């Protein structure tokens, strides 16, 4: 039997899509600044990149506040319980139309694999990009803060972070197609309502 559950709150959805838009904007402008192609022109790309970066920082401040005050940060506490079952599902079961082994609830909406990958995103990839990005932007002010680092290592760390984010994006976007239908997970993130298989 299927049950419709309000899985994502309004703030979560707003946060998710704004963040998606900003991260994709940062990637498009960032790789243009890196010299990979020409879309906006260097100056415009730079202005957009900085605007998107500040916007993402402000949005992240709201998101951190939301996670802390609502206790939603607990969603990301890593666990290896049933980790093997999730892995088995994506590597084998999914090809045999087996149902997803994880029972998703608003209180624990992330399966062990998601917990790990989103935690990595939040405590490693994003901070790496934000910190190296801030240092990059305020490079001329660093000596005044007593920080001595070359532009090259900063730029390389920022570039590496961007590649990690791009990898996350590719896999993340693909995973959204693994629901009941290709669009069902995406649609759930739009409306907040998700159809969940109810266990006996």
């Amino acid at each position: 039997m299927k049950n419709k559950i309000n899985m994502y709150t309004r703030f979560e959805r707003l946060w998710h899509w704004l963040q998606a838009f900003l991260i994709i904007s940062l990637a498009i402008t960032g790789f243009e600044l890196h010299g990979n192609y020409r879309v906006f022109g260097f100056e415009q790309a730079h202005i957009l990149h900085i605007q998107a970066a500040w916007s993402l920082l402000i949005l992240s401040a709201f998101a951190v506040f939301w996670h802390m005050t609502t206790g939603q940060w607990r969603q990301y506490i890593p666990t290896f319980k049933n980790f093997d079952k999730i892995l088995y599902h994506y590597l084998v079961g999914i090809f045999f139309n087996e149902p997803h082994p994880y029972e998703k609830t608003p209180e624990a909406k992330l399966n062990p694999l998601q917990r790990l990958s989103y935690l990595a995103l939040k405590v490693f990839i994003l901070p790496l990009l934000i910190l190296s990005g801030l240092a990059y932007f305020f490079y001329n002010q660093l000596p005044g803060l007593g920080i001595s680092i070359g532009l090259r290592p900063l730029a390389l760390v920022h570039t590496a972070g961007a590649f990690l984010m791009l990898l996350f994006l590719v896999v993340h976007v693909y995973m959204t197609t693994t629901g009941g239908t290709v669009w069902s997970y995406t649609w759930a993130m739009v409306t907040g309502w998700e159809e969940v298989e109810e266990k006996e």
Partner: protein
Amino acid sequence: MCHERSGAYKKFPTDCGHPAYTEKNFGGKAFAPVDLNTVAKSVGKPELRNCGVCHFYGGGDDGVKHGDLDSTLLSADRELDIHMSKDGAGLDCASCHTTVNHEIAGRYYTEPAQMERCLALPKDYCNRMSCESCHGARPHVENAKLNDHTDKVSCQACHIPTFSRGGKSTLMWWDWSKAGNHADDGKMIVKKDPDGRPTYHTMKGEMRWEKDVTPVYAWYNGGMEYVTLNDTFSPDEPVRINRPEGGYEDASARIFPFKYFQGRQVYDAQANRLVVTKLFGPKGSGAYWSDYDWQKSVEVGMAGNGDFSGEIGFVDTAMYWPITHMVAPKEDSLQCAACHVRNGRLASLSGFYMPGRDRAGWLDMTGWSLVVLSILGVAAHGLGRVLFPFLRRKRDEE
């Protein structure tokens, strides 16, 4: 000369700075005697023309030497020179080249130009020779990130996109080794380009002229290193007769635009040194322009000027001429991508990381490989999700 404002004062070409006091001829041109009374009565504050009559004509003709200084500045529009144009700031040379005790701010052969970051207001009696004297070190308002460039990039580098923009060409290449050819009738050969500039002259050799020239860029802290008659060099590469000093690590150095002037000239082929040549003099004196014999001209030129091995040759030489005038209006300044691009204007400067130009090949290779692999991976996974159920259905049907 410097202060006369009548326009009547003219020096006679070969009288060591004296004007014609009586009617005289040179090169088919008549020089009327100068009325020194009128000239003396016209003395006043120097305007563009006063400085320009000499400094626009360095090298014997209009715009030959500098590239950023020629007579087109006298009637410059905003696009040619925002400072000197009457439609721009309408400044004179002396607005920036201020004097203290009649010593004019500028750069000399060994002294750096005044490049300290000092502010000077019009009322101040001091050297006002740098852009920052008036504009400050953070002059960009609309895009403040540009101000982060001023510690490494000179104002001139971006705000003078090209030089010799006024329509006058400047000399870029001078091959002395081709000089001395005469026509069959013994007359001198003179070939000219459409602008009337000599591309070949028996007395001087081969020359190349350019307009609207893109500068070359080098680190420059205001000091120059010179190859003198005492210095030896390797003749296998162009001898840089002067070389801007400074580098990325030098806090007082900036990336600066230069006219990179190249040539080929006679040198001491055994000692690998520059030589003095005697060019001007009567026939039989050894002067090149009379006898057309390089060997003799160097022997005479070097007499009393140091050692000469006796063996001459021709060597490629180059000179850096700092470009600092012909500042364009801000809308014409260089855009970011002129330099922040794989093979831009600063491609040859090394030792620092520049966004858009530089990358670590191994990092990009690893990054893009992983991205492509992940895309292939999820594509294969997706294909499996479509293909497996399909194959199973087919098998069940059979």
